[in-house]
């Protein structure tokens, strides 16, 4: 089986075990540019592992992942890190903002990792913070902002490099519905307008409803509902 035509990121036959526990057992995935795909499933089903594999953070035991025509497994760790720095963006549930850096420095972080000068990086960061309506938090540290604001800062950080794929792992998990939906709205709007694909891991249907389609992961196996129907 090969990746569906025109897909940006695709995976086939992923298998990954953590010790005796099988987290992925033949999972499939594909996403097109600009598409928002929800990865759903009960907790412990392997959603996060699938996301980590797709993002090249974790190497699967078996199976292939192709990103823009390249097989991730053939890339060195350094190359994969570079890919994550420049082409991917990440939003997690918690613990992602560096507490000692100010919000603007946090947003600028991925650009600086790519070697962009501090001034330029912070200018771009401010632009994204404005777009996510958190530019007034520039000088604040993450400890001084609310959860919803922090998550918006995180979204700004995920988007600041103009990534082709954003990986979001339960991005609203720690937020109330109002804040959560606002974050989803901002994230999907920004992604769609920039042609960025979003891999959205969530167990909440209302969050998944912001996607274009969903795949369900159960017991390490995935099911693409659109293709199944």
């Amino acid at each position, binding site marked *: 089986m090969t990746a569906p035509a025109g897909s940006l990121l695709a995976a086939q036959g992923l298998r990954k075990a953590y010790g005796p526990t099988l987290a992925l057992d033949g999972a499939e995935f594909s996403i097109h540019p600009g598409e928002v795909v929800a990865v759903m499933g009960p907790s412990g089903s392997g959603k996060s592992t699938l996301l980590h594999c797709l993002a090249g953070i974790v190497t699967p035991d078996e199976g292939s992942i192709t990103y823009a025509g390249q097989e991730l497994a053939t890339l060195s760790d350094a190359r994969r890190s570079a890919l994550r720095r420049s082409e*991917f963006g*990440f939003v997690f549930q918690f613990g992602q903002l560096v507490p000692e850096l100010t919000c603007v420095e946090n947003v600028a972080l991925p650009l600086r990792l790519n070697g962009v000068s501090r001034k330029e990086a912070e200018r771009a960061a401010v632009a994204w913070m404005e777009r996510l309506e958190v530019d007034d938090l520039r000088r604040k540290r993450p400890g001084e902002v609310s959860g919803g604001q922090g998550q918006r800062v995180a979204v700004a950080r995920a988007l600041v490099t103009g990534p082709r794929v954003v990986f979001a792992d339960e991005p609203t998990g720690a937020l109330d519905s109002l804040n959560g939906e606002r974050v989803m709205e901002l994230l999907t709007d920004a992604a769609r307008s920039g042609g960025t694909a979003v891999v959205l891991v969530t167990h909440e249907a209302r969050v998944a409803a912001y996607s274009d389609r969903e795949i369900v992961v159960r017991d390490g196996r995935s099911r693409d509902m659109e293709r199944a129907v």
Partner: protein
Amino acid sequence: MSIRQWSRDLSMGVRFAFGGGREGWTRALLTAVGVGLGVALLLLSTSVPNALAVRHDRDKARADHTFSQPDRPKADNTVIVADANTTFGERDVRGRLLEPEGPRAPRPPGVDRLPRAGEMVVSPALKDLLASGDGKLLRARLPYRISGTIGERGLVGSHELVYYAGAEGLSARLDRSSVARITAFGDTVAVTVERTDPILILLILVVFTVLLMPVAVFIAAAVRFGGERRDRRLAALRLVGSDSRTTRRIAAGEALGGSLLGLVLGAAFFLMVRQAAGSVELMGVSAFPSYLTPSPALALLVAGAVPAASVLVTLFTLRGVVIEPLGVVRTAKPARRRLWWRLLLPLAGLAMLYPMVGQGRDNGYFNQYLVVGGVMLLLVGVTALLPWIVEAVVGRLGAGALSWQLAVRRLQLSSGTAARTVNGIAVAVAGAIALHMLFSGVEGDYTKPTGQDLQRAQMQVSLDRGAIGAVGKFRSTKGVRSVTQLSDIDLGDRRENPDQGVPLTIGDCTALRELASLPSCHDGDVFAVTGAEPDESWTSTARPGRTLYIDPSYEGSPGEAIAWKVPGTLRHGTSVDGLLGYRRGGLMMTPGALPPGAAERATTQLYLRLDRSVPRAEEYVRNTTAGIDPMADATLWSSTRESKRFASIRTGLYVGAACVLGLIGASLLVSQLEQLRDRRKLLSSLVAFGTRRRTLSLSVLWQTAIPIALGLLLASAVGLGLGALLLRMAATSVRVDWASVLAMSGIGAGVVLVVTLLSLPPLLRLMRPEGLRTE
């Protein structure tokens, strides 16, 4: 609030300290080791006065003080004692010749039976030395049969080399100075005891202060180990309903747990050191373990004060902290650190030390309290200044590379923590640099050129008797190149109690030319040598044709009073710099000019040039000397001798400083690891979006290196300042000892590197993506 409540809360805290699995134990153990070192040092320093007192008493009890004894007739309770000290290698040997004159003759302490002529009793250390291959040369010098050993009562240290040898015919040499007839050993007459070298006291005081201070700082830091985890634990306690005060007491109890274990460890360390003290010799001073007994009151004080201090430190550090059920809140932003009172501490230290400048020589007096207080204030000043400096500098550090930015921002957020961990290192380094400077300065001073010309002679032997024929014996001694013999005799203007004396030196032409420039010289010539001293009044006494008396009699000391007429042809010479290191003038005479019978009355100095290629040549010379007269003295001229005196102290200092730094390094590592673990999620997410391992590793390095660099800078400054001040106090020229600054800074930097290296594997492990898993 009842005592029961206090003890209940504290004991709960103690349980927390040791609970919590491996981490809890590690933390408690580190605290305990730090506290233990402190306790051991405290116990040691409280027992030093006692040890000195015991040594002093023992020394008094065996005193024979051969000077200042009255003349007394031979009786059945008298013994004649003669000094027969010698030196072996670097070590002094206390030797006495004893000639009991009756059945009730006194015995020195520790000696059961007086040795018969040809026998000796020795200290165990001397016995071992003589039995060893190393002591073979000494064996030749002490040709007596060992008939017994001296008990501990008669010794002031386990390593002391002492012998008492039986002798005969000593009565002929009674002179009340080095040979005396006594009826009892012990300090019967009030005598001035030689005061301990004030510089030695200064050194001891500073060593203890310098080693104690970082330990104190370490204890203060150690009781705060595991801050964040403890915060969570305390918050959880509040959540289940413990009130704020109870929670604080429980926190104090955790610190108490570590310090109680520390007391036990400290006692154990102390006993170990005490036992080891019996086998160590410092600056020629050794002790018996039993000497090192802290006074009970002081020991009790230590046992009470250390745990109490740990509780107080904890309560003090929690003063700005509000423990809420949902977490620990540091009250707002602590007020900006103020500089003035931080500067006050070192200034006060300087003020205490400054008045003592220049008292080191001439048996000056150092006020112990001022020395300790001043040094402590200066070092405490370091700990007070460092947080301010770290805050001020870190606040101004710009953002550079990303790793730098991460580290700097982290430090800006918690500069106090960083400074606290570095404080110990800074204090240790400052103290060590100062001490090192003091040592090398004092040592340099001790070896200041004496003026003795080492090119011309390396040893000097003084002989009161047996000088005739001695030259030949020395010439044939192994390792001797050449011998120059110079004798002097008293020369006065009257037979008895002369008013005017004339310096008289006797030697052959070669020998005299070492002292003066002579126009020509033949045996039988007499010279008047001038140009040596401002006081040349003797020239009027030693007029040609006048009769003078060689070896005149003095009250209580009869002499031969040999008449001698100053020859009419008194030739002139000019004193030159030479052999002795100073210029000598007066009459100089070749042996042929000496009236008969005078030679026996002369005191003879032999100046020996040694063959440096013969190892231990000086021992052969000493052996020859002892063969001629056991009571004679052979001195090694050397500038290298003293330099080894402080070697052991310096080694000890290095070892101590390295231990303290290692301990602090361990605590740095623990807090570093703790911090890393608390940031596991963050690290994983940073890796997720592509942060290089190098960047994070470097930021960990910066985070340790920046405060330590600042600490080392400050420590070097304070250390050099304190060192200079101490040298001034010791009245010694100030030399900056860059080597020690570099060495200590190097050790400090090494600690940073090791800590960083050791925290890298856990860092890399924590950076693995598994950290992202939440399920």
